[in-house]
């Protein structure tokens, strides 16, 4: 039985697509057959982050409309085995995704895949609702910043009331908090909400903390999921996150400022 995981946030620009790409790749690296589905109709970007933008022929909406089949549409990742991408359409028609259409495609994917990662668009419009509707688990991507935390809380409300599991009275969606762009230095100075602060406000289980890192921009510049940059802090933090998603207990890293030498501590810098 395939597990459907939505990567969502409410607010835009917090790292949903970066995280979807990293999580999908990480699960595939762990040996699970995984597909990442871009639900951001009209603003396709997962293809660019995954570095397969020039290989898009058909898209999600084509499959729903019966203009292409899944086999023609899925893009096989060239670096990672077991990994496929279903690109979003560039259509401006906001209602191109119907619930029946999405359900049909997800059911078909579920026959073949272990994990279906739904990369949600920002906002709480139909696209975002569609991305979370069929989910079994949710990764709520949050920045340690007021508007992001508030929007995440809105999305948590949607997950518990507007999803298939809620409507059918099934066991609720399993919610995970993924804190991204975390800067321990600013937290220590009292300029940024801490992991504990955000955990306390949102009151859901923490699955990962990704430090603010140059590696993320480098990765998106070159179309490589950052999790493949195994020497980078962000890459390692995503690898830890995957282990936790799969049920392993892993201590959190990159939560504190690296200890400085004596001289630096006296003079700063």
């Amino acid at each position, binding site marked *: 039985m395939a597990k459907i995981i939505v990567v969502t946030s409410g607010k835009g620009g917090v790292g949903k697509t970066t995280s979807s790409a990293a999580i999908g790749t990480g699960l595939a690296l762990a040996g699970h057959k995984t597909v990442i589905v871009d639900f951001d109709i009209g603003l396709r970007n997962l293809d660019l982050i995954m570095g397969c933008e020039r290989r898009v022929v058909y898209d999600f909406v084509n499959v729903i409309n019966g203009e292409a089949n899944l086999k023609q549409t899925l893009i096989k990742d060239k670096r990672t085995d077991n990994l496929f991408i279903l690109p979003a359409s560039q259509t401006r028609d906001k209602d191109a995704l119907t619930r029946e259409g999405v359900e049909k495609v997800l059911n078909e994917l579920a026959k073949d895949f272990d994990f279906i990662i739904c990369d949600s668009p920002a906002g709480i419009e139909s696209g975002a609702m569609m991305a979370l509707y069929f989910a079994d688990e949710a990764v709520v991507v949050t920045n340690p*910043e*007021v508007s992001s*935390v*508030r929007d995440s*809380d*809105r999305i948590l*409300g949607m997950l518990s*009331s507007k999803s298939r599991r809620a409507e059918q009275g099934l066991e609720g969606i399993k919610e995970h908090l993924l804190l991204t762009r975390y800067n321990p230095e600013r*937290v220590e100075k*009292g*300029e*940024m*909400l*801490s992991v504990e*602060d955000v955990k*306390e*406000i949102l009151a859901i289980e923490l699955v990962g903390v990704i430090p603010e890192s140059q590696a993320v921009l480098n990765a998106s510049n070159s179309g490589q999921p950052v999790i493949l940059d195994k020497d980078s802090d962000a890459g390692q933090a995503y690898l830890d996150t995957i282990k936790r998603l799969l049920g392993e207990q892993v201590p959190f890293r990159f939560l504190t400022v690296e200890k400085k030498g004596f001289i*630096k*501590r*006296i*003079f*700063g*810098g």
Partner: protein
Amino acid sequence: MSLLDYFRSTKKNTANTAKERLQIIVAHERKRRNGPDYLPQLERDILEVIRKYVDIPADQIAVSLEQRGDQISVLELNVTFPDDKR
């Protein structure tokens, strides 16, 4: 913290401010989210009744249900009448 920082460390801790503000607004919004499902319908019905007498646009009416303590819920109704209809 460096020695330099030590002498200018009277700066306000904005993270605490953020946390306090978030706790308040999130609690408030959760309360509304958990409000009864009939509230929007109630709002429409009240609007219809008022419209029998005065023609007001839909956005000029606000209904909210507030929980005050364990025992009391207060239904608050706010209707803005247009100037010429008073």
